């Protein structure tokens, strides 16, 4: 038996208005290179950092949501190393005394079981710039490199977990849960693909029969939730293979290479930099008052997992649905609005889980600025209740309603979307169909009941889908069994 042990180090870009230590804008994603910079973030000689108060508040929000203990006095340190994207030659971080420690996040693992992942520490630091290498992905093989310093000084919180995850799936679930939390808190956009949320993992495998633990491997460059799972799965298998052969893996840092779907060695741990951490003399210690902690605590929104549990309880919807709906604040709020207004939580959930999420994903629907509303769903449900439209038609009606910004009832009126309840017409169409296909009738009579679909289909074709499927079903059944 092999037991996998995974711990994560997460960097989350903090969504403050300005950078961590200067007043340049912090939102630098895809902005013109080297335009959002100043003497401080480009490390001009003589420039000094000044801590952004908003970053502290956002870090505290994150820390409190992760059940951390807040250090009332923390401090900043310098992490020294040379790299072209680090203009000061050091990164300002919190090494000796982080702002928060000893927290946890409860997740529901892949088997739906509750699991507590402990958080070792959470601290504030600054991001580095960005390099674009010419001719190669890596600096030593490229023929030249472009340097964009916009990202220098963008605030980050680094979150370090204890090695509490026991599978790659669980690591992914944790990352998603963390993302959902940080998003709801407005601390981080959570976008891994855009680099707003980044994750490195430490993984080792224990051979329980031999009571042997493999070397620990650090995996970097997993820039999506899917790749966190894939890279760690690859790495887990690689370690187990070596253990089975009676070998061990190297104590090293590896990088996930997406096109090859594998990890490759970056450097041995012995070759790691000595970062020469020491207290940052330019920044005084950071004091956080009890009052401030209380104010931030009181301002915390309902967190995704609490919301999920409440949804299950309050609206009696399936756990899966509750999980999806609660993971995004906008969607969760919209669901609650519709569910309460229409008083039909299950259907509200179905519609939002199905059509609305599909439109958000496939059609880039902007929920906030769309025509979607609780009134619209109320209207739509009424049309279905009155059998004026079928649920299938309702989807089309919804499409039109959003496109034309009109209520479903108006669409139905204008476009003649009415369900055909005309039993005479339906009977006539079925009669025609029976005449044309006696074979199908025989099949039905010999017990192949699902052949009824052929006759229902014929009616739908003739009525352009507007016939009420229930009515058609009833009539067809009656006629065939005559």
């Amino acid at each position: 038996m092999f037991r996998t042990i995974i711990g994560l180090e997460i960097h989350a870009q903090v969504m403050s208005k300005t950078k961590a230590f200067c007043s340049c804008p912090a939102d630098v994603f895809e902005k013109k290179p080297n335009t959002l910079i100043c003497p401080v973030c480009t490390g001009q000689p003589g420039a000094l950092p000044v801590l952004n108060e908003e970053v502290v508040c956002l870090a505290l929000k994150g820390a409190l949501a992760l059940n951390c203990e807040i250090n009332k006095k923390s401090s900043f340190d310098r992490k020294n190393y040379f790299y072209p994207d680090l203009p000061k030659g050091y990164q300002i971080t919190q090494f000796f005394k982080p702002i928060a420690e000893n927290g946890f996040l409860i997740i529901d693992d892949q088997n739906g079981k509750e699991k507590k992942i402990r958080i070792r520490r959470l601290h504030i630091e600054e991001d580095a710039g960005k390099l674009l290498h010419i001719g190669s992905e890596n600096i030593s093989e490229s023929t030249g490199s472009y340097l964009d310093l916009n990202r220098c000084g963008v605030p980050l919180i680094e979150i370090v977990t204890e090695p509490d995850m026991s599978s790659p799936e669980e690591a992914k679930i944790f990352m998603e849960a963390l993302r959902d939390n940080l998003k709801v808190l407005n601390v981080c956009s959570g976008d891994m693909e855009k680099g707003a949320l980044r994750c490195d993992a430490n993984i080792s495998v224990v051979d329980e029969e031999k009571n042997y633990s493999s070397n620990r491997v650090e995996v970097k460059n997993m820039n999506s939730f899917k790749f966190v799972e894939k890279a760690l799965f690859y790495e887990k298998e690689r370690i187990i293979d070596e253990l089975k052969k009676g070998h061990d893996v190297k104590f090293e840092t590896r990088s996930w290479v997406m096109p090859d779907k594998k990890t490759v060695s970056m450097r041995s741990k012995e070759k790691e930099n000595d970062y020469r951490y020491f207290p940052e003399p330019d920044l005084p210690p950071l004091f956080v008052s009890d009052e401030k902690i209380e104010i931030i605590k009181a301002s915390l929104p309902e967190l995704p997992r609490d919301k999920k549990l409440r949804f299950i309880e309050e609206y009696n919807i399936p756990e899966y649905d509750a999980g999806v709906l609660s993971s995004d604040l906008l969607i969760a709020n919209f669901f609650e609005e519709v569910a309460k207004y229409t008083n039909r939580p299950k259907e509200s959930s179905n519609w939002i889980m199905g059509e609305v999420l599909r439109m958000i994903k496939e059609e880039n629907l902007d929920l906030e600025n769309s025509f979607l509303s609780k009134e619209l769903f109320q209207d739509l449900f009424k049309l279905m209740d009155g059998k004026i439209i079928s649920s299938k038609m309702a989807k089309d009606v919804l499409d039109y309603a959003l496109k034309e910004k009109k209520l479903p009832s108006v669409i139905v009126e204008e476009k003649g979307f009415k369900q055909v309840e005309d039993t005479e017409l339906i009977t006539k169409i079925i009669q025609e169909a029976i005449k044309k296909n006696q074979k199908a009738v025989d099949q039905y009579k010999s017990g192949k009941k699902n052949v009824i679909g052929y006759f229902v289909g014929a009616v739908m074709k003739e009525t352009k889908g507007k016939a009420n499927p229930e009515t058609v079903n009833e009539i067809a059944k009656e006629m065939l069994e005559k």
Partner: protein
Amino acid sequence: MSENFLNKKIREMERVNKKGDIFSFFFNRTKKYDEKVKAFLEILNYKEAIPYGLKDNILCIGAKTTCGSQLLKNYNSTYDATVVENLRKYGFEPLGKTNMDEFAMGSSTENSSFFPTRNPWNTERIPGGSSGGSAAAVASGLVPFALGSDTGGSIRLPAAMCGIVGYKPSYGLVSRYGLVAFGSSLDQIGPFTRCIEDTHSVIKMIASKDEKDSTSENFEIKDLATTDLKKIRIAIPREMVDYEGLDEGVKESFYLFVEELEKNGVKINYVNIPSLKYVIATYYLIAPGEASSNLSRFDGVRYGKRNDKSNYEDMVNLFRDSGFGIEVKRRILLGTFTLSSAYYDAYYRKALKVRRIIKKEIDKIFENNDFIINPTSPVIAPYLNQITDPLTYYLMDYYTISANLIGAPAISLPIKRVENMPVGLHIMSKRFMDNELLSFANRIQNLSPSFKNGFFELPDGGEKYV
């Protein structure tokens, strides 16, 4: 414009001299006399302003900021230091950037990568350092005052050696924004002047709580007060006057002045500060540690001449090896070593601890004493190239370093001359007792035989401008 003492005197001088505007007056003097002492690295021409000398590690748009280093010889200031902005509000602009030991590392200005500055009292001698250019400029009457920076004595030592007033304010009084950092927890900007009133005028203009410097403090510089010398208690550390490296002539001058103080009613207490024997070691662990980090931004990517090494690591190595001078390299290596994870606890962390102990011991002295005095330097200015062993210079800092380690203000003013070379008196007070320190220094300056007609004397041949 504030009507401070310095301004009044300059205005009066302008009226008497009628030699055109004040900037041109000093500009022309500098053009004529700087050749003798080589105080300036760059001379600027602002006209319409009152001039001052600015150490070349303080940024000022329109001027280079070289820090005395080849590595930055073409670096144009990208912004204005807060002190430069503050002085501009009162109508002051720098006449030039003054020479210094490379990155402020040194006590002689011989470590400037451009040329050494000479002492106006004897051009065969050094002016002291690292702010030697600023000291020499003021002592030659090229500017009414100058700014320097002091990490371990870099204002007070050259002031003593050049026979003028040098003041290192309490840490946090003057914004460091725009001062190229050497030892960030020790650095402080301060003025060189020819009398205490001017010191007071300048500090009043440059001191500010700066939102760009988190270590700056809100502090009010009050008007100079009358000090009753009979109420003043002064401590003299035995470790300093009994120090074996203390020159006999300097010692004698110091004691003569102490006698003068006693005659005027000052109470003198001889005290022991055992931890003083650790100040040099402590300083040379902390300052190079911070410096090694502060100077790591000079990696050859953005500053200086790009070399054509094909790989990043070689490029950085070649740049730093060929760009930094020997003293800077020595300190970077020392700092890199003491910060390395294997030695951090044994050296850097221990030094921080000793720093706290030194502060405690000195604070205890201040419980029963208003000031601590000692000679500013154990020796008068040495000759150029006389001292080649860096340790001798390090030991020279013994008298000034504790003020930086504990963040206290300290001032050096000229007392008697030895071999016609100035000797400085060093006065230190508790942190943020700057008002009391300046008032006291103002009260006693006329007890100095070098103080004449409201100013400390300039060397022979130095053209009087008042």
